[in-house]
């Protein structure tokens, strides 16, 4: 603080003649700072300012809202819920039992493309009611272990998925253990649509958080199998499904990137999805959805931002007009002293 006080030489010079006579005078030295006379702008909410602020907001917000809304409308998004559909009718009474029983759970669904979709088309899976943000879950990982081979024995924080059969699990912890393991295969007119699974994770994760020389070890070998198995021969930095999964979601409903289809899809194309329905969301009544979506410059399909911008912009426009009207109908000489009265019970505070 005191550094700003700055009893600078210029100030001292100003009062030098005064203090010259009395050397050790206690007279406070003059500076605009200590006398609280710093140059300042003192904004007050005059009608002009209020109205211009409202107009400014609406002028900026309405175009942004329109643009955002257009961007969102341009995005083509197809959502297919399959968690119930992919269980045979006979098994639907006890979905948990079905999903936990061994055996092939392949299921085929058809998706009709509603609108022309330009590549790249992003494939997501969406889980619902899945608390990846639960504190126990979020903490159940060990970043050091994921990063370097040297600390592969470090499993602190991973309990209970830290050791299996007395051996260290790599990657340890609940997050890795519960890795999503449904798989999708797409075909159009019996022609395989290839899904590119490279580059779906954040670059920083791949390069800095997951080691190139860290290989899965003793993974999913316990009594209780959580989710997907990992290929022991591929280093973690290349296991992009894992990397995506381990970037935990913030909210209990979330999508994660599964891959990219690098082809355009035409309107009314029928896509056949062959999926393996392995992942257990039935225990906690979670939905599973498959999402195909393009993106715009603003991202995926969500009208909210556009509408919100338009609403606020419009509201401000309305307020600007309302205030203008008020000032026109009931103009007031600013600082009219008739407002300057003081009574013990101020009417409106």
């Amino acid at each position: 603080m005191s550094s700003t006080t700055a009893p600078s030489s210029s100030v001292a010079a100003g009062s030098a003649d005064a203090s010259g006579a009395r050397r050790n005078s206690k007279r406070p030295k003059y500076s605009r700072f200590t006398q609280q006379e710093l140059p300042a702008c003192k904004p007050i909410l005059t009608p002009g300012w209020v109205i211009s602020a409202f107009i400014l907001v609406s002028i900026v917000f309405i175009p942004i809202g329109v643009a955002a809304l257009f961007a969102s409308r341009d995005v083509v998004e197809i959502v297919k819920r399959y968690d119930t559909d992919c269980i045979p009718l006979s098994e639907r009474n006890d979905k948990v039992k079905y999903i936990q029983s061994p055996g092939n759970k392949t299921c085929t669904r058809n998706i009709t493309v509603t609108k022309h979709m330009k590549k790249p088309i992003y494939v997501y899976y969406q889980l619902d009611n899945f608390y990846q943000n639960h504190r126990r879950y979020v903490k159940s990982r060990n970043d050091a272990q994921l990063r370097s081979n040297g600390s592969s024995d470090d499993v602190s924080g991973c309990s209970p998925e830290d050791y299996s059969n007395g051996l260290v699990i790599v990657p340890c912890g609940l997050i890795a253990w519960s890795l999503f393991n449904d798989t999708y295969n797409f075909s159009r007119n019996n022609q395989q649509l290839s899904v590119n699974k490279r580059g779906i994770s954040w670059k920083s994760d791949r390069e800095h958080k997951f080691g190139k020389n860290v290989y899965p070890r003793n993974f999913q070998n316990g009594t209780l199998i959580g989710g997907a198995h990992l290929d022991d021969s591929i280093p973690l930095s290349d296991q992009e499904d894992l990397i995506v999964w381990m970037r935990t979601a913030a909210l209990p409903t979330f999508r994660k990137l599964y891959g990219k289809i690098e082809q355009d899809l035409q309107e009314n194309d029928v896509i056949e999805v062959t999926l393996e329905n392995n992942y257990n969301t039935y225990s906690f009544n979670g939905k599973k959805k498959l999402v195909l979506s393009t993106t715009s410059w603003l991202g995926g399909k969500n009208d909210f931002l556009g509408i919100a911008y338009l609403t606020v912009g419009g509201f401000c426009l309305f307020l600007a007009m309302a205030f203008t009207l008020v000032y026109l109908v009931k103009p007031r000489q600013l600082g009219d002293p008739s407002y300057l009265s003081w009574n013990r019970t101020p009417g409106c505070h």
Partner: protein
Amino acid sequence: MAGGGKKKRRHLFKRVHDSSFRQESFQDEHFLIGGPGFSRIVFCNDPDCPDAASLGYGGNYIRSTKYTLASFLPKSMFEQFRRVANVYFLICGLLSFTPLSPYSAASTVVPLVVVIGITMGKEIIEDWRRKKQDIEVNNRKVKVHKGDGVFDYTKWRDLKVGAVVKVEKDEFFPADLLLLSSTYDDGICYVETMNLDGETNLKLKQALQVTLNLTEESSFKDFKAIARCEDPNANLYSFIGSLNIGQENYPLTPQQLLLRDSKLRNTEYVYGVVIFTGHDTKVIQNSTAPPSKRSKIERRVDKIVYLLFAGLVLLSVIGSVFFGIWTSYDIEGGAMTRWYLRPDDTTIYYNPKKAGIAAILHFLTALMLYSYFIPISLYVSIEIVKVLQSVFINQDQEMYHEETDQPARARTSNLNEELGQVDTILSDKTGTLTCNSMEFIKCSVAGIAYGRGVTEVERAIARRKDTPLEEEKGGEVEDLTEAKSSVKGYNFIDERITDGNWVNEARPDLIQKFLRLLAICHTAIPEVDEETGRISYEAESPDEAAFVIAARELGFQFFERTQTSISLHELDTLTGKTVERTYKLLNVLEFSSTRKRMSVIVRNDEGKLLLLTKGADSVMFVRLSRDRNEFVEQTKEHVNEYADGGLRTMVLAYRELNDDEYSEFNEAFTAAKNMVTGERDELIEDVEEKIERDLILLGATAVEDKLQTGVPDCIDKLAQAGIKLWVLTGDKMETAINIGFACSLLRQGMKQIIINSEAPEAKAMEKTEDKSATDAAAKASVLHQIAEAKAFLDESSESPEALALIIDGKSLAYALEDDAKNMFLDLAIGCASVICCRSSPKQKALVTRLVKVRTGGTTLAIGDGANDVGMLQEADIGIGISGYEGMQAVMSSDIAVAQFRFLERLLLVHGHWCYRRISSMICYFFYKNLAFGFTLFYFEAYASFSGQAAYNDWYLSLYNVFFTSLPVIALGVFDQDVSAKLCLRFPLLYQEGVQNVLFSWSRILGWAFNGVVAATCVFFFCVRALETQAFRKGGEVVGFQVLGATMYTCVIWVVNCQMALSINYFTYIQHLFIWGGVIFWYIFLLAYGAMDPDVSTTAYMVFVEACAPAVMFWFVTAFVLVSSLLPYFIYSAIQMRFCPMYHQMIQWIRNDGQSDDPEYCKMVRQRSLRPNTVGFSARFRQSMRFEENSEPTLQFERTEE
């Protein structure tokens, strides 16, 4: 050694004072000596003997510091953790080392350590200052007997009980001393007890007969004595002991005790024995530890913190209950539901089978998580801000007093904002309102008014009439050149009289008599400076001195007084030369408060007997001869004029006596004087009464009890600001009333309610009944008077008639008793001004407490003497006047200023600003913490209340310390709603503080609500906008990291911009801190994100890689920012338009540039004035009204009975 003449003079002084000494005899109470409570034994002149050492009396070292080196740590820690908030954070800190903690231990402990460290640092600095003061006092030197009759200097702190010390003129006594001898033969000495009771007159002390001969240093060679006395106690006015010399015992009384911190005056030196040292001395025993004062705002802050605690606990309970329920569902019928959490193999914290315990443990976690509701840095920020505010107060040039070289000094920074809320000022008079010097300024002789001097009041009124806007210059006197007269106590300018010109006036004979009377009729004693020949006077009261000085300056120099005569150098009208005349002094008819006059009877050198009388107009005019007086009317007129100008008037008259008349009188007078019965005084009065009649009027004098510069101005401003001013003075009622007039607290036409226990009926009782009955009767009388006045007040409550209450000390004692005090207070509050006279220091404190407790308003006490200490400590704020004498008041004050007039700036400018700053700052603090805390809570709800924080650990812990602290401190230090000039121009603005509109509950809750709104906007808009879809072109979705960073960015923007929106004063510092805070966040995010992932964890590269390239991120920030501020903005705009607060109106006026339009400002100020106020504006207005209406309005007379 002074010559014999001086001694003679002293004896005379004694006679004039008519002081009778107590007989040296043992009283009943002396038999207590040796018993319990009276066990102290002092071996005089032998402090080192083994017997003395075994008694183990403490040294003379004094310590006023709060801590010692050893006790600092535990004691200051204890102080720190008396604050609930700090205990809470300590517990959080400890718990953060357990797995319960939602975030890392370091991020919890670091802020706490910083906060406590800063506060303790402040304590150290403050205590160090006290230490330095102690060192100064303890190292003062005094001469002490070292044995063999040798005296040498010793430091005060090394003084021992029993030591013989020699104290010289104008030195302070280092400890409580037993007076042994002085330079006077009869062992008297004069003591000034200014520091003890604030009385400026000298007290006489006298040594025992037996020790009188110890006048030489060598005589202490073989002196031995043993004093036995009472144990140390706090009673200043009692002392019981006995002195054993040889085989004899001699009684000791307070008459022999010289108290520490009083001063030796008019005596070359005294010898004394140390009886009480250091903390045993009466004055220190008497001083209570200064109560640590806390401002109202701070107390309310505590309440708010409790409220927040309640909110915190509530939210935690909600969270825990939900968490318990969710956890218990994790295993349903033996099957895991949320299997990915492995509820089958878990610790106690998440065990679904023991969900109850898990919930309880989670409660602790939640308490830690939501700790952001409690602003940890609030207290420390407030303290930093207050210290800086104090620096501004100390540095204010407008409050620097040139003459005494004293700037204002805020001794504690706790009360800055309290200065903006003062409701009642309780002021001492002498030395506070007045300079305690009297100046002869005008006189009226033979019906002609002389004297062109201008009083402070007249100056103020004149200024107001002519140039209504010039007063913004504050109390600065524009005409310093004119005021300074060379002679103290004399400010009489009129060339018709001065330099002997009076002989050419119409009635030189009367003028001569007038001046002669001034020179003769008094009890002053001349003191001739041998070198210069200048004569100065020692008088009982300063106004008497002023008369004698005036007479001297006008050519009637009084230069000698003997037992029986008074000698003057006076101008002979015939020869034009100065001649010496001696008047034979026959009788002095003394002044008393009931008589209100004094007379002398002298025989002049022509042999004529003259009765010279001076007295108050009320008693003098009735005693004038009916037929021989020509100028009564004119003189009366002049007297009224003078009184209205705030001057003390005195009417002078004389009569020639014939010898018979005199001898008759003298006989009766002597007889009465020799009476021993209780009726003696009355008889004397009767005799005096008889001779003081048929007087011939000479004229009247007007003495200005010199007000300090700018006092009327200041009082007027304070009155306009709606602050009530009570004067509590030890002075006589007449004096107090005069000063009341002088500083416009009273004015002609104001109804005065005088409550007086010297009412005739009470006096009558006194003679007949016993003491308790008298008391009861007096009390009944006082109660009756109060009740009557109250009834009058109720009656007149409709008409804006200004009332003044004047009450004397004795009545006050009754009025302050439990059964009467409510009624008294009701009455006092209804009056525009209240003057309590003849009040003791204790009563001052009691009145202060009464006002403080009963009205609930903030009280400010201002005083300069030690008699004001109790009042200063009792009041919410104590202001000490520094500068002239005695530091006692300053030492126990909270803020010291050099002059009363600085109060105006201190309160109206600094007080208002500080109040405003602190209250806005605190409101903002709650806002920002709620805005932040609620986002955490909302996130919790989306994370099944598991205790997961939405943000990275270090975002969390740096929120309060880094990203938001500097702007709020800048707000607390620099914000100004209106400039100092406008604060002073519109004093009513001050009422915002008194009525506490800026820190009312509605406002606080409003800000809290605004915080919740902001949090809601931030969280839900972020969540809805970012939801599940890709948030950028590359198809990536928002994870935990990105959502946290985005929300946090939004919070930082919102709270900083809210700050920008709500402050009124943008200097470069505000710009730097507000925008700097935001920019700093981005820089931090970059730097922190660039660190190794082990350190940065979830913040790793989050900005560079994920957020910054996404348009969505920026759009969301912008949208959330605007939408969160919109509610506040709309509210402000509407409020500003439809019901602006007072400061906003002034801002508007300033904005329109109309603040420089004098006509306009005058109009505004007139409008904003409330009626029924005091001050010269009110006086001026009233006189204007009289002129306009030109109809006689009720003129209330002074109701003296």
